[in-house]
């Protein structure tokens, strides 16, 4: 669990340089099913994600994309099937346990601490990761607080929010809130980062800034799953794309392949009968 002190975004892809990354699958979703009452949100989802890659999940509204992420982070328990990350089963674990394993999530509507300062917002996840289950030793708890503060400032600098770090988070613009939430996830040094529509509702230049930011993170070799509607974002970031429609993965592959797939076109554009 010990991490290096290298500046977070400049951390080059050491983990990837092993040369066997083609078959290095780290996240497995096997036969996931989930229904809400009569509605079948996830029919039978199988998804395998390679380590260090960015895997985009696209699909029409109501296809079950957010449900899928909720299953991964323990917010929802699947009716059947299991999720394993790096050999550890995530199904049935509590959200905080999954977070401790190294899975972080950026939500569709930013989940931040609106009443606290930006700096506190970023320091808190680092503290919770450190003291996760429970630690109540005031002396120990105070000891490396300065270290955490430095790292939080550094990350805020990376996402371009350092000048505002004394501000109350609730007063940020929506795009800045997303960037703040992203930095809150980055300080956790996650091994798997789940991004739920990170650019939804953003203006074009904010979207581009976010893409640049995510590209920088990409260099760190963190595994990422990204849910996105904006094809521009998907094709700028994703190594692999899966298409989810009516609770099933209907296509999976390189971005260019998926774009040309007739099934995908049908799911997005509808067929004549509909």
């Amino acid at each position: 669990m010990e991490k290096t002190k290298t500046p977070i975004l400049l951390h080059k892809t050491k983990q990837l340089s092993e040369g066997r990354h083609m078959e290095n699958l780290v996240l497995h979703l096997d036969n996931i099913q989930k229904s809400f009452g009569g509605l079948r949100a996830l029919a039978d989802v199988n998804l395998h994600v390679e380590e260090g890659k960015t895997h985009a999940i696209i699909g029409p509204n109501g296809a079950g994309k957010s449900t899928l992420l909720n299953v991964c982070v323990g917010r929802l328990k699947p009716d059947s099937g299991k999720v394993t990350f790096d050999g550890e089963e995530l199904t049935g674990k509590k959200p905080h346990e999954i977070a401790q394993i190294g899975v972080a999530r950026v939500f569709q509507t930013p989940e931040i601490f609106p009443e606290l300062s930006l700096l506190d917002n970023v320091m808190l996840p680092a503290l919770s990761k450190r003291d996760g289950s429970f630690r109540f030793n005031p002396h120990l708890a105070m000891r490396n607080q300065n270290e955490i503060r430095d790292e939080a400032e550094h990350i805020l600098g990376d996402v371009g929010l350092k000048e505002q770090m004394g501000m109350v988070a609730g007063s940020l613009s929506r795009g800045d809130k997303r960037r703040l939430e992203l930095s809150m996830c980055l300080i956790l040094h996650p091994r798997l980062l789940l991004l739920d529509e990170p650019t939804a509702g953003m203006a074009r230049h904010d979207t581009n800034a976010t893409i640049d930011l995510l590209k920088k993170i990409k260099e760190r070799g963190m595994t990422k799953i990204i849910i996105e509607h904006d094809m521009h974002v998907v094709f700028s970031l994703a190594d692999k794309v899966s298409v989810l429609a009516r609770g099933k993965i209907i296509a999976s592959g390189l971005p260019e392949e998926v774009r040309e797939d007739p099934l995908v076109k049908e799911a997005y554009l509808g067929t004549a009968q509909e």
Partner: protein
Amino acid sequence: MKQRFLNDTNLLLVFSAAILLMPIWLSPLGAAYPDLLQKFAIYGIFAIGFNILFGLTGYLSFGHAAFLGVGSYAAVWSFKLFTMNVVPAVFFGVIFAGLLAFLIGYISLRRSGIYFSILTLAFAQMSYNLAYSVLTPITNGETGLQLTINDPRWIDSMYITVEEGLPSTNLFGLKMSGYPGFYFCAILLIVCFFISLRIFRSPFGLMLRGIKSNQNRMNYTGLNTKPYMLSAFVISGMFAGLAGSLLAVTDPLAGAERMQWTASGEVVLMTILGGVGTLIGPMLGAGLIKYFENIFSSFNKNLLHEVFSFLPDGVEDVVVQVVSLFVGGGWHLTLGLLFMIVVIFLPGGIVEGFQKFGGVFGYGKNKNSDSSPQNQAAE
């Protein structure tokens, strides 16, 4: 960091000085008699402890009187069974309140918001009724638990020759009534204030504030919020137990009415009146309410006639009639009005009032609070 540390030290020094010098600066206000000063200090501890739970985590407990009561009972039993020395009494008061808080907190914290409040209220009323009836062998029911000449006092009986009449509480021989009693409470109050200050500034305090702000996010960053909430609850219950045991130290009896919901409500009022989530707010609120309760309620018509004797006779009678509604037995009315004014115009309590007042003259605000006046834990 350095700047803030100095500010905290100064705050602690100013607070200690203000508390220890209360007999002097409160005498023009007519409040400088030991009985009332003891109450200021004791209810200050109660409110400061309550604020650790309510101010930091936002969980509103309506049952803190239960811990106050248990602290009192435990202290009186320590007087009865062991010794009239106050140290064990305070110790047992804190420990038993902590145990009860663990039990009640463990169950109540399964819910949040209004359901948590109702659960704590239910537990406190349950404790009250138990103390009042079922547990009479322990609590002596409605008469209240008192010292008697026949109490065993095992430790005392070994070392101290038995005197005539009821012995009084003491700290290694120093009698705990009057001013020594006040200073004993005051020193504990300062210690409690220091602990609360450290908690507010610690990562633990920051986490509690995170839980208040967005519990969901805390979970998704890997924090198991339950044990943190529970420890905040227990700490705050132990503060209440300390306050309860001090009530018994200064006046060695304990009755069930100490556990009644009105006592729980009172500490909520104190905290909100002074300023939720601020360091000195609860102390101010506690002082103000106890001042009203003891001083305002003792004003009677004769006194009012004296005060307003400069007015012409007819006017004087009318004024006295009107004002008398708000003093004496009607002091609750004044308190209610004050409470409404504070909640409507100063949601941050009296502390926010001071900040605004200070802001008018261009000082009293530090750099941090400029950006977040609502949320700064400092003065």
